C-alpha cells in the first residue's frame, strides 16, 4: 500500500484525536472542542449530515417498494443483520452488511454495527436510565469481575450535564435503584399501564416499580434545544430513519454540529483506523494510523491525547492491532486481559398476556417510550441462586382491527372501517445483567484480513448457567406479577436469540483500580498509556441492567474534562 503522507506533519497534527463519531465519541469531541481543544474526529464510514442525509425520513409507507419488508436476497446475503428488529427497508442503509465487514464467530454472535458518521446513534432505542451504586457496587459485593474504580457520586454531575444537553424526558420517580435526573416533562403511561403499576405497588408492598422509561427525546424547553437546531419530538416513531426535527438525541443532530460550530473540530469520514501509534522514547501514544476507506491509502495523524470510541468490540480491535515492541500484545495490554471479560445484556425472554378490563378505552397519537421495571432482584441482598438481576420493558397496547375473513365489497367495507377493538395486549421483555468472564472474549484472527488490511475480529461469547437461571426467574416473576394484576392468557417465551442482538456488547478494556487486573483507571486512561482514553462500551467493568448509552455519554464528557485538566498541569 502506498503511503502518501505528502502533507507535512504539522498539518496532520491536532491537540486531540477522537476515534469514532457515535454516541460516546461525539460527546468526547463536543466537550474537547468547547474547551478550546483542536480536535480531529475519525470515522470509518461515510459522512451522514443531519437531515440532508436521511433519505427515507419523510417517505410515506406506500413509497417503499416492499412496504418496509427486506427482500429475500438481502436476507440471504446478510443473515446476521437481518435478525435485527430495526433492519427494515426504511433504515437498512444505516446498518453494516454482513458481507462487507466479515468477522469470525468462534461462538455464534450477532454483531450489529453502524459504520457512518453518527454510528449507531441514529439507530439506538433511546432509553436512558441512570446507574446507581447498587450497580457500581455489584462486582465488589457479589465477588465477580473487579471492583469499579468509580461510584455514582463520580458520575452524578456528568449524568446531569449530558442529560440536559441531549434532552431527556422522564418523571422524578424517587426510586433508589434508578436515580432521578435533569428531566424534561415525562411521557405518561396509558390507563392500563398505570393500573398495572398501581397493582404492582399494592401486591408487592411498594418494593417493585413500573415507571415510564426515561428517553432521550425533547418533550419541552424547545427554546433551549433550538440553539442546537433541534425541536420537539413529533411522536413519529420513525427514529431509525434519522429525525429531521432532531427530536431525539443523535450525534448527527446534536453533538457533532455543536462541536463543528466551535471551529475546533475537523471531521474526517472514510478513515478506517488501523492502529494507535506508540512512541517508545516518549513513552506515550503520539497519533493514529488510518487506511482511507476508498483509496486504501494509509495516513497518519498526530495528537497529544487520543480518545478511543470505536464502539465496544472495535475499540478492542484497534488496541489489539496497535502493537509495538513495548506492547507486543496490544496497546496497554501488559496483563494479557485485553479483549477478555466481554459481556452483554440478556434479552432472551418475554412474557405477554391480555387484560380484559378498561374495555371502553383506547389510546391515540404516538409516544417514543414505554414502561420500564427497574431491577428488583438481589438488590439489597442476595436472595436467589443466581447473581444479579434484570430490568424489564413493559407496555400495554390496544389495536383496532377489521375483519378480513370476507371477500368483495364486504371485505372492502370492513377494511375501510376498522372498528374491532380487541383486548389490551400486555407485553414485557427482560434485560438481564450478564456476568463478565475471562472465557467470554474477543481476539484477533491473524490468518484473515479485511479489505483494509485489518485482521478479522474473532468473537467468543456465550450464555452461562447464571443466565439460564435468570431467564427462568424472570419468566416466573413476571408471570406472577401479571397474574396478581389480573392479566390473563399469560404466555412465557424464550426466543433463544444468540448474544449480540441486544446491541449492548460491553467490556474487554475494563476499568479497575489495579493495573494487574484491569486496563483502564478511574479516569478511563489506559493504565500503561495515560494519554489514551477509552470511554465507550469497551470500558465497562460490569453490565448492570440499564441501556448503557447514557453512561457512555457521561463517561466521555467526564474523561474529556479530565484530559483537558491534565494538559494544563
Amino acid at each position, binding site marked *: 500500500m502506498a503511503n502518501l503522507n505528502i502533507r507535512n506533519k504539522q498539518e496532520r497534527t491536532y491537540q486531540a484525536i477522537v476515534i469514532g463519531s457515535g454516541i460516546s465519541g461525539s460527546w468526547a469531541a463536543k466537550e474537547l472542542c468547547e474547551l478550546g481543544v483542536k480536535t480531529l474526529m475519525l470515522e470509518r464510514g461515510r459522512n451522514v449530515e443531519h437531515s440532508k442525509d436521511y433519505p427515507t425520513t*419523510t417517505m*410515506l*409507507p*406506500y*413509497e417503499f*417498494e*416492499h*412496504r418496509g*419488508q*427486506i*427482500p*429475500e*436476497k438481502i436476507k440471504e446475503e446478510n443473515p446476521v443483520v437481518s435478525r435485527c428488529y430495526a433492519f427494515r427497508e426504511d433504515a437498512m442503509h444505516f446498518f453494516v452488511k454482513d458481507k462487507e465487514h466479515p468477522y469470525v464467530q468462534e461462538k455464534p454472535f450477532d454483531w450489529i454495527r453502524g459504520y457512518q458518521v453518527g454510528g449507531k446513534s441514529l439507530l439506538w432505542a433511546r432509553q436512558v436510565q441512570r446507574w446507581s451504586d447498587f450497580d457500581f457496587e455489584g462486582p465488589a459485593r457479589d465477588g465477580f469481575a473487579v471492583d469499579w474504580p468509580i461510584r455514582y457520586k463520580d458520575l452524578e454531575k456528568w449524568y446531569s450535564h449530558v442529560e440536559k444537553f441531549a434532552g431527556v424526558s422522564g418523571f422524578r420517580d424517587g426510586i433508589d435503584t434508578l436515580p432521578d435526573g435533569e428531566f424534561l416533562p415525562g*411521557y*405518561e*403511561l*396509558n*390507563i392500563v*399501564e*398505570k393500573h398495572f403499576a398501581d397493582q404492582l405497588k399494592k401486591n408487592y408492598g411498594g418494593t417493585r416499580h413500573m415507571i415510564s422509561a426515561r428517553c432521550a427525546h425533547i418533550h419541552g424547553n424547545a427554546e433551549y434545544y433550538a440553539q442546537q437546531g433541534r425541536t420537539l419530538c*413529533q*411522536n*413519529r*416513531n*420513525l427514529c431509525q430513519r434519522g429525525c429531521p426535527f432532531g427530536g431525539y438525541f443523535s450525534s448527527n443532530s446534536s453533538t457533532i454540529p455543536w462541536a463543528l460550530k466551535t471551529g475546533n473540530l475537523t471531521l474526517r469520514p472514510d478513515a478506517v483506523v488501523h492502529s494507535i501509534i506508540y512512541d517508545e522514547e516518549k513513552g506515550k501514544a503520539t497519533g493514529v494510523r488510518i487506511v482511507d476507506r476508498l483509496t486504501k491509502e494509509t495516513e497518519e495523524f498526530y495528537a497529544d491525547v487520543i480518545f478511543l470510541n470505536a464502539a465496544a468490540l472495535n475499540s478492542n480491535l484497534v488496541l489489539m492491532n496497535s502493537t509495538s515492541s513495548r506492547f507486543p500484545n496490544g496497546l496497554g495490554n501488559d496483563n494479557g486481559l485485553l479483549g477478555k471479560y466481554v459481556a452483554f445484556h440478556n434479552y432472551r425472554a418475554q412474557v405477554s398476556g391480555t387484560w380484559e378490563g378498561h374495555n*371502553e*378505552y*383506547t*389510546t*391515540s*397519537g*404516538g*409516544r417514543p417510550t414505554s414502561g420500564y421495571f427497574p431491577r428488583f432482584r438481589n438488590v439489597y441482598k442476595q436472595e436467589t441462586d443466581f447473581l444479579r438481576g434484570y430490568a424489564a420493558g413493559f407496555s400495554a397496547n390496544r389495536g383496532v382491527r377489521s375483519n*378480513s375473513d370476507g*371477500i*368483495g*365489497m364486504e*371485505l*372492502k*367495507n370492513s*377494511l*375501510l*372501517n376498522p372498528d374491532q*377493538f380487541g383486548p389490551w395486549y400486555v407485553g414485557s421483555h427482560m434485560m438481564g445483567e450478564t456476568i463478565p468472564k475471562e472465557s467470554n472474549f474477543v481476539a484477533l484472527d491473524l490468518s484473515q484480513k479485511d479489505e483494509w488490511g485489518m485482521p478479522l475480529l474473532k468473537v467468543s461469547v456465550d450464555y452461562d448457567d447464571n443466565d439460564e437461571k435468570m431467564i427462568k426467574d424472570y419468566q416466573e416473576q413476571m408471570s406472577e406479577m401479571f397474574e396478581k394484576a389480573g392479566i390473563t392468557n399469560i404466555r412465557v417465551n424464550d426466543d433463544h436469540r444468540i448474544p449480540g442482538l441486544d446491541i449492548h456488547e460491553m467490556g474487554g478494556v475494563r476499568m479497575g483500580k489495579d493495573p494487574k487486573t484491569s486496563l483502564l483507571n478511574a479516569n478511563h486512561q489506559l493504565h500503561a498509556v495515560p494519554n489514551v482514553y477509552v470511554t465507550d462500551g469497551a470500558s465497562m467493568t460490569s453490565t448492570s441492567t440499564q441501556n448503557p448509552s447514557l453512561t457512555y455519554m457521561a463517561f466521555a464528557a467526564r474523561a474529556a474534562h479530565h484530559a483537558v485538566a491534565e494538559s494544563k498541569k
Partner: protein
Amino acid sequence: MNRRIALRHLALISGGLVLIPSCDFSKEDILAAYENLKVTASQKNLLGMISDTIIPAGEIKGALDLEVPDFILVMVDDCFTQDNQTKFTEGLASFPDYVKNASGKKFEDLSTKEKEEVILAGTKLEGDDTDEGKKKAAVAYFLNSTKRLTIQGYMASEYIQTEVIPYSLIPGEYNGAVLISDLQKPRVNG
C-alpha cells in the same frame, strides 16, 4: 429494482409489455419484470381479476385500479423464498383448472358472486401427498397469499393513504386514555 423500473418505463414507451421470448413457440412469453418468477401476461391478467374480486371497485377505487397485481408480483418476486415462489406460481398455474373443476366454467365467465365463492372455497382447500393434493395445496397457498398481498397493497397504496384514510407522518401527542365512545369517524362506503 432499477432494472424493473427500466423495464416498466420501456413497456410504457413501447406501448406494450416487455417479454422474454420463450424458446417453445407453443408457450406464451414470460414477463421480464419479475426476474424470479415465470409469469405470463395472461396469468398477470388473471391475477388482476382475482385481486379485483377480492377488493372490487365501487364508489372507491378497487385493487385493479391501484395496480395491486403488480405489487403482488413484486412482493412474491423479491420477498418470497424460492420454495414459496414455486408454490405461488404453481398455484397460479393450477387455478384455471381448479375453477373449471369446481364450477364448470372459466373464471372470467363467472358472476361476481360465483367468483367470490370460488376464491373463498379455494383458500380453504386442503392438500395431501398425491399430485392432485399438491395442486390443491398450491392453489390454497396462492389464493391466501394473493388475498393477504391484495389487502396490503390496497391499504398501503398512495390513493387510500392520501384520499381515503390519510396517513399522518405526525400522529400527535399521545393520549393514553381515550374513550372509544368519543371517537367519531364517518363511515367510509366502499
